[in-house]
């Protein structure tokens, strides 16, 4: 597996070693799960043959949960406890939620993230999303016939750190090993690029149910390089429905309606919108709970006119991304359309006019994201096939910085930096004898902190007391390949590694995840502990196999005493594998990981050196 990839990147494991991995598109309106089967990425359907799972969860008073079509049908009947479009609330406070007053839900404003009161109690958007993911996981395990080794979950490219963290937490809560958070337009580009063997510069125009992303990618010789990304996390097909709903209220001359009727009219609006994809006019018809009938005729041009501003709103991020990539519209070789909302003819027309070419629609816009995510998941799980040697380089969508004097945001990592990325900045104390410092981490492009998103407040303690300005505190920002940020700090003059207290203002803390997991454990049929033990065993067995193979091929890189340490850690893991104590096993695994770390680094150096030496010779020969 992994260790083999250094020396033989093309090696694929034996079929019986294939690890089951899926790609999940956790959408605002619909969610999908896909997997690579027999070398082809396919969407996994449910028992009725449906690929799309409506992202709707209904909570019943007895604690039961219904997900998907059945929940969707109950929306108008039971609007408060039937949650749709929950993605809009991920990592968001109540003040960030658009149209909260028009929504049928009973919001509970809680610190960090808004929550929803349902018949089964108060639920956080992370828990609701986890219920959707759990349904997809069950579907995948049933179809593929085994436990999942891991999953790639897609997120809008323009999701900020809080929204990403919330999504990853939802995956964990659903019992998934999240291999990677992948940006939706990038996933679509993988599916499209591999399918069409494309080369050149592409724009991915991704208008989903609730979010809009625009990414510019360069595809060349098996490399997918994201040049720039821009978007709007509160703009999607839902907004077109909402415009239509407002229009219906106005034209049918009806006053304020009940939550049930709101739901009903929103559904009729969506149906009418979908009809206009292939017809010049349609009927918007519904019978309200008061018995009052609503019957309106809607033409495509009326619809285009009332949503003109929304269409214009999508073109702003397009211009911004092009500017960041230092490109003009005519530098783009193709525009890939993604997301159900791009079926609207006037969106197609606007995009065609802007880029001066018809957009590409040859992959199903509802499926393409999940298909690309499945390809990535398969590779990340270690099932890279012969010749499958592509590389993905993605970026962070929004600048990261900290608050400085006067409430201004100072950028530390600029937007569109290729990840993983790290930057450090030095600060000093401004008072004599100061031993603590507060650091406020923010994300966004605006100058004022109040216009950016607050990601967290960090407190740095135990700074040695010195005169003002003498302490040198180095704050390091590290963004990993999931686009998630971690911060560490160190006092340089005395070399003190200062403790950092992280108080996430969004997302669930680890303690909270543990609590929710425990609660679900209480009424979950499957034994979580047994499952956890099984997962730890798989991890331990893989590590043992990888270490043995590494010792076999690169054993000459280790000194005797290091070898003895590794051997003893190996023996300990093997012994723990015989028992049933998961914690002891996990401790032995991490001890082995620690013992092999310097060895891993030297192996990596050797792999890199080998790869580059081979090519240097070529380069010299060319010259």
């Amino acid at each position, binding site marked *: 597996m992994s260790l083999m990839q250094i020396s033989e990147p093309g090696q694929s494991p034996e079929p019986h070693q294939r690890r089951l991995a899926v790609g999940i598109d956790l959408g605002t309106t619909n969610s999908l799960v896909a997997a690579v089967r027999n070398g082809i990425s396919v969407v996994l359907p449910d028992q009725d043959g449906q690929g799309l799972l409506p992202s709707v969860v209904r909570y019943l008073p007895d604690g039961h949960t219904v997900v998907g079509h059945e929940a969707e049908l109950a929306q108008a009947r039971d609007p408060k406890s039937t949650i749709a479009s929950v993605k809009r609330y991920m990592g968001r406070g109540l003040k960030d939620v658009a149209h909260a007053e028009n929504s049928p839900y009973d919001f509970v404003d809680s610190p960090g993230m808004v929550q929803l009161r349902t018949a089964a109690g108060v639920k956080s958007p992370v828990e609701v999303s986890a219920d959707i993911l759990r349904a997809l996981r069950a579907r995948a395990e049933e179809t593929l016939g085994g436990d999942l080794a891991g999953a790639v979950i897609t997120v809008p490219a323009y999701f900020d750190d809080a929204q990403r963290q919330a999504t990853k937490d939802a995956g964990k809560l659903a019992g998934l090993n999240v291999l990677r958070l992948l940006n939706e337009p990038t996933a679509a580009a993988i599916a499209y690029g591999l399918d069409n063997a494309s080369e050149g510069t592409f724009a991915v125009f991704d208008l989903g149910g609730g979010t809009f992303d625009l990414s510019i990618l360069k595809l060349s010789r098996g490399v997918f390089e994201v040049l720039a990304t821009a978007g709007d996390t509160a703009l999607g097909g839902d907004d077109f429905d909402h415009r239509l709903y407002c229009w219906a209220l106005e034209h049918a001359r009806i006053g304020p309606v009940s939550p049930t009727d709101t739901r009903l009219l929103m559904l009729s609006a969506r149906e009418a919108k979908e009809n206009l994809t292939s017809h010049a006019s349609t009927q918007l018809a519904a019978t309200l709970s008061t018995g009052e009938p609503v019957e309106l005729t809607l033409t495509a041009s009326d619809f285009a006119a009332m949503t003109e501003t929304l269409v214009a709103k999508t073109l702003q991020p397009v211009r911004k991304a092009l500017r960041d990539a230092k490109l003009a519209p005519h530098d783009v070789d193709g525009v890939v359309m993604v997301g159900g909302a791009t079926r609207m003819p006037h969106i197609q027309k606007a995009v065609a006019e802007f880029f001066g070419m018809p957009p590409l629609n040859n992959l199903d816009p509802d499926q393409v994201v999940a298909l690309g995510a499945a390809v990535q998941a398969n590779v990340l799980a270690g099932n890279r096939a012969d010749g499958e040697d592509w*590389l993905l380089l993605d970026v962070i969508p929004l600048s990261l910085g900290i608050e400085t004097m006067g409430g201004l945001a100072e950028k530390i990592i600029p937007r569109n930096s290729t990840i993983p990325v790290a930057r450090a900045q030095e600060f000093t104390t401004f008072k004599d004898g100061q031993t603590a410092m507060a650091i406020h981490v923010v994300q966004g492009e605006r100058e004022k902190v109040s216009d950016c998103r607050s990601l967290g407040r960090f407190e740095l303690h135990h700074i040695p007391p010195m005169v003002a300005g003498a302490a040198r505190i180095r704050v390091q920002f590290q963004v990993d390949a999931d686009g998630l940020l971690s911060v560490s700090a160190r006092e340089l003059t005395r070399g003190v590694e200062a403790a950092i207290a992280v108080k996430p203002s969004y997302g669930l803390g680890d303690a909270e995840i543990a609590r929710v997991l425990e609660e679900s454990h209480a009424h979950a049929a499957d034994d979580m502990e047994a499952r956890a033990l099984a997962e730890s065993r798989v991890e331990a067995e893989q590590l043992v196999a990888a270490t043995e193979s590494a010792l076999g091929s690169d054993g000459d890189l280790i000194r005797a005493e290091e070898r003895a340490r590794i051997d003893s850690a190996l023996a300990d893991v093997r012994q723990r594998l015989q028992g049933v104590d998961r914690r002891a096993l996990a401790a032995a695994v991490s001890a082995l990981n620690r013992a092999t770390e310097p060895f891993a680094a030297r192996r990596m150096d050797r792999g890199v050196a080998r790869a580059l030496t081979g090519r240097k010779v070529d380069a010299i020969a060319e010259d």
Partner: protein
Amino acid sequence: MNLKQNHFEIFGVPEEFDVDLDALEKRYLELQREVHPDRFAAASKAEQRVSMQLATRVNEAYETLKYPLDRAEYLLRLADVDPELETNTAMPPEFLAAQLERREALEAAVAAGDWERLIALSSELRVEEDALLGRLGRQLDARDWDNATASLRQLKFLEKFSEEIDSAEEGLET
């Protein structure tokens, strides 16, 4: 490759201002193919940590060498010269006068909502930046650190102005 090498050493390119961007990109992709975390998603935690460190380092080195101003600043730092970009704001008077004039033109264009004028301003700026970049490269290669530092500071100034034009364009769009 190791974490102690400087950016030029990582890519095996000569330590000078003019770099072959195609060769740099090619080497960058070769390195990322070896060290990127996607290659180690199923690996041990130890390897994942090493992979993230190396991939981060490769990205940092590439970003620095790819952009001329960052590359110039890095060359100065390698020569132990502090360009004092944040603290030293001294500029030749004729340069400042030209910038003042340019700023007035920008403000007038924004006030009038004159898109064409903004585009023209930004291409004028690019011509000046290119000329200044040529000079900077010659100064760096001649190890004329004082004049190179002065050129770099002026280019940084122009870069900021170019960002202001961009946000003015953005402002006109909304």
